[in-house]
């Protein structure tokens, strides 16, 4: 009998998502396990810890209904792999890689280990191609570039899904028509939320170029661990083998991290901060670092992970560790949302680390960097003054300060706020910026080069 046909019925323990099988032979770390329950139902698992005669298995579809008497396990002799093919585009898959759309299974071109290998830093191409999302706060202040990983930090009840859908819908590189695909990976979101994306993709015709991996809120938690890995394996194939520009949307990373904690707890590991495992940083990085560009390859992977900050707390381990790995962050704020500003992007804590190389002459416009810095500084000052006004009243302010205060209000109303279907070009964004800046004294525009002030600052309007 071949090794992979041996069925072990020696399950000795089942705890949380884990199962221990004794008396096994010749098993490998991270090998995939096929499990049959006493009702004949088949499930998949993976070896988390391998001993000479014992395996600790994490069961993907949950351990409900497993027993220590009749349950059997079969070790299939390979680690978790995903069959990849160009036909995956336009299809929907579940957490184990099986199709969910009632269409026949795909015929894989190749089977790939879902853990992937790290990209050699020497082989990376530095991302610098401007992606226009049509959203002023992103394009103007936190520019997204191809190959970047830029997460959206949100809170429960904020319109992050709408924002992500808008980005997926509008994102384009100026002046180029290239092969483009979206990989959408949903971890533990509700079917309602998933439908929002599906409908949006349908309406815009994007569904045909989208690969969906779905693990909804009522699907087994444990599958959430492998879902982004599968999605990214698929994305790597599309990007680096088929030359496509791939936008990967991962939502919601908070559910992913919760699943990670669940397994760690079941294994009785020493917990790190707030019960999350000490290796969460490494684990998240294994996913996030799979974005980027490679020298000599046409395709690219741009990642937009989304997460809900528990209690809107940006210092919570999930957003915190994410921010340490990703190249910036877009932060949504409840206060702006309550003021009916869409998208409620809290400009000050946002950042795009790759922005500097993606903007400027020949990419966006020569004045972009200066304008962006000036908007930031002026808005920050305006926000500070708001606190002051709350105490001393507006009358106590100097003329200069009053202008900054006004600037902050106008900035939120005209620059941050825009419609969910409004697709602003970078020129429009910059024009609005200059109009806003013209409300400030010219001598305060210290962050912008004088030549650009002369060239772009609109003439001062006569006061009526």
């Amino acid at each position, binding site marked *: 009998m071949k090794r992979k046909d041996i069925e072990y019925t020696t399950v000795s323990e089942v705890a949380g998502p884990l199962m221990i099988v004794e008396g096994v032979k*010749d*098993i*490998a*770390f*991270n*090998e995939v396990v096929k499990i049959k329950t006493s009702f004949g139902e088949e499930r998949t698992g993976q070896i988390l*810890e*391998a*001993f*000479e005669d014992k395996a600790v298995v994490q069961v993907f579809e949950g351990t409900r209904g497993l027993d220590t008497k009749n349950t059997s396990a079969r070790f299939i002799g390979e*680690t978790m792999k995903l069959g990849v093919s160009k036909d995956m585009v336009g299809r929907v898959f579940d957490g184990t890689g099986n199709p969910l759309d009632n269409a026949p299974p795909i015929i894989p071109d190749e089977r790939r*280990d879902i*853990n992937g*290998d790290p*990209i*050699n*830093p*020497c*082989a*990376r*191409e*530095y991302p610098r191609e401007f992606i226009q999302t049509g959203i002023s706060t992103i394009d103007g202040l936190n520019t997204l570039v191809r*190959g*970047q990983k830029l997460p959206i930090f949100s809170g429960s009840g904020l319109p992050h899904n709408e924002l992500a859908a808008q980005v997926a819908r509008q994102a384009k590189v100026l002046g180029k028509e290239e092969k483009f695909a979206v990989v959408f990976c949903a971890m533990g979101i509700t079917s309602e939320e998933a439908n929002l994306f599906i409908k949006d993709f349908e309406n815009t015709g994007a569904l045909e170029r989208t690969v969906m991996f779905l693990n909804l809120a009522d699907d087994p938690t444990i599958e959430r661990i492998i879902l982004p890995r599968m999605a990214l394996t698929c994305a790597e194939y599309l990007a*680096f083998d088929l030359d496509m520009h791939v936008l990967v949307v991962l939502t919601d990373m908070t559910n992913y991290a919760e699943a990670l904690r669940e397994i760690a707890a079941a294994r009785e590991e020493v917990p*790190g901060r707030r019960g999350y495992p*000490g*290796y969460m*940083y*490494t684990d998240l*990085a294994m996913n996030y*670092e799979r974005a*980027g560009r*490679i*020298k000599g*390859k046409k395709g690219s992977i741009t990642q937009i992970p989304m997460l809900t900050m528990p209690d809107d707390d940006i*210092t919570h381990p999930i957003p*915190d560790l994410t*921010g*340490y790995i990703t*190249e*910036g*962050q877009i932060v949504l704020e409840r206060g702006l949302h309550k003021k009916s500003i869409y998208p409620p992007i809290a400009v*000050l*804590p946002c*950042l795009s*680390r*790759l922005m*500097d190389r993606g903007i400027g002459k020949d990419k966006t416009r020569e004045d972009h*960097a200066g304008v962006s*810095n000036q908007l930031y500084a002026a808005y*920050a*000052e305006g926000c500070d003054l708001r*606190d002051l006004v709350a105490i*001393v009243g507006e009358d*106590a*302010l*100097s003329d200069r300060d009053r202008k900054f205060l006004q600037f902050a209000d106008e900035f939120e109303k005209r620059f941050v706020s825009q419609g969910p279907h409004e697709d602003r070009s970078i020129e429009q964004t910059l024009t609005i910026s200059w109009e806003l800046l013209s409300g400030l004294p010219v*001598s305060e525009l*210290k962050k912008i080069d004088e030549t650009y002030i002369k060239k772009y600052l609109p003439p001062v309007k006569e006061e009526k």
Partner: protein
Amino acid sequence: MSEIVGKIVRISGPVIEADDMRGSKMYDVVRVGDENLIGEIIRLNEDIATIQVYEDTNGLKPGEKVISTLEPLSVELGPGLITNIYDGIQRPLPAINKQTGDFIARGVEAHALDRKKKWHFKPTAKRGDKVKGCDIIGEVQESTIILHKIIVPPDVQGVLSSVGKEGDYTIEDDIAAVTTDKGNVKLKMLQRWPVRKARPVAEKYDPSLALITGQRVIDTFFPVAKGGTAAIPGGFGTGKTVMLHQLAKWSDAQIIVYVGCGERGNEMTDVLREFPVLEDPITHEPLMNRTVLIANTSNMPVAARDASVYTGITIAEYYRDMGYDVALMADSTSRWAEAMREISGRLEEMPGEEGYPAYLASRLAEFYERAGRVKLLGSKNKEGSVSVMGAVSPPGGDFSEPVAQNTLRIVKVFWALDADLADKRHFPSINWLKSYSLYLEEVSDWWEKTVGKDWLKLRNRAMALLQKESELQEIVKLVGPDALPPRERGLLESARMVRENYLQQSAFHEVDTYCPGKKQYEMLRLMLKFSDKIQEAVGKNVHIDDIISIKSRETLARTGTVPNEEFEKRFKSLEQEMENEINSLIKGRVK
């Protein structure tokens, strides 16, 4: 000793256990499994050795063999290090790229240093010379600016029995021989040294020379000395990496070792892309020609992350032993500490604070202690230094966590990065009220001798001004700025000038990115003069709003971007203009 071959009995992520390993030593390197993965022994219990594996363990099977090399984890030292980029265990990434393509596969073997390349060796010692460890026997031009000194290994002492003639050699060719007490020792350009053991020195000196970094807030306010240690803690987005890149670019050390430990892949790519193009302000050669890079990005195996800082510091010590001033940047030491935590967790050790192992503090101390300005072993009483600058990434930006706290107990300079400043795009976001440098006294000598006699006085005046500003800001928050007396409003304006235009410095502006010492001094002097003139004018009843709307104020604000070649001339005329403008305001008032 005969070969030790054991077999795997347990695999748990990057940690495995192997049986039949009796006879191996702690920290010996082993080859694991059929793919010959590299690992290191971290615990021994009778026949069982616990091993951390430096590569991904997917698909590894219990029962596969483990072979001990009986040697500790070592780095290869010799010409060819400069301009190279290595992973955590010193495998050259460009060579791996050629071997296995764009992704790093497992079980790759590649020599750290090219075995075939010939280097032009010039002997500087002769037969019959008495030599000790770190004595120089010859030179190789390693890059356009680095003269690689071929030194006697620290543990060799005796009389040179032969030295090779000038000519081209590979690093494995014999180039000299030394007759020692224990027999004849052949020397090659290639040497090895175990990474976890500090290279010996004759004596440690107190650091006293300033390491000029071209960053105003650092050089003027919180200087670091050659051979000193500094920590840069800050939450994400506060600019740690940009800061370290700036230091790596502009520090006046002769050799830079940059360790990317558990950080982003694109950041290393950025260094790889920029450094060959950027020019060193002193030698006008590409910065890459004095740089060694270690890149163990966050998605590369975690055990190798632990090794990467040791690999880096050992290479730094090697160049120090040639008599160079070396600066090492580690980004980020928190990731290294987390790697320790992960391995410790897998070993089921009793955790200390926040799950970190109890030995966290001693490991950090050991590492930073390898920095210093030292008297070298050799017979010539030469000096060298290793300065260490480490980024710390505290969770949630909260400096009370174990890694930041344990680091601060050791290092002498603390550059506190502040998220509020970063949000306002005040970069570098070093908080001037929280940061400190214990080298201030030591380095002020150098500044006062070479730049300006009143350097320390100016610096302290500016610091006091900023301190006073923060006190006044508290009052402003309650009563508004208009309610302050004119003198205080003048102080606020002066402090704003220093804060916005001296402390802030753009890393991305081609001129502002590097500010020479003399220019720093002159800028500060002008700004304080502006402050004095404000007070003088206010005292003569000139309205503060009139003063701050003078034209030279704007010019003063833009002094950072005045090209370094012409600043002296332009500053002089600016000074004159400023005095004239304020004087005429005073005159107008008196009439």
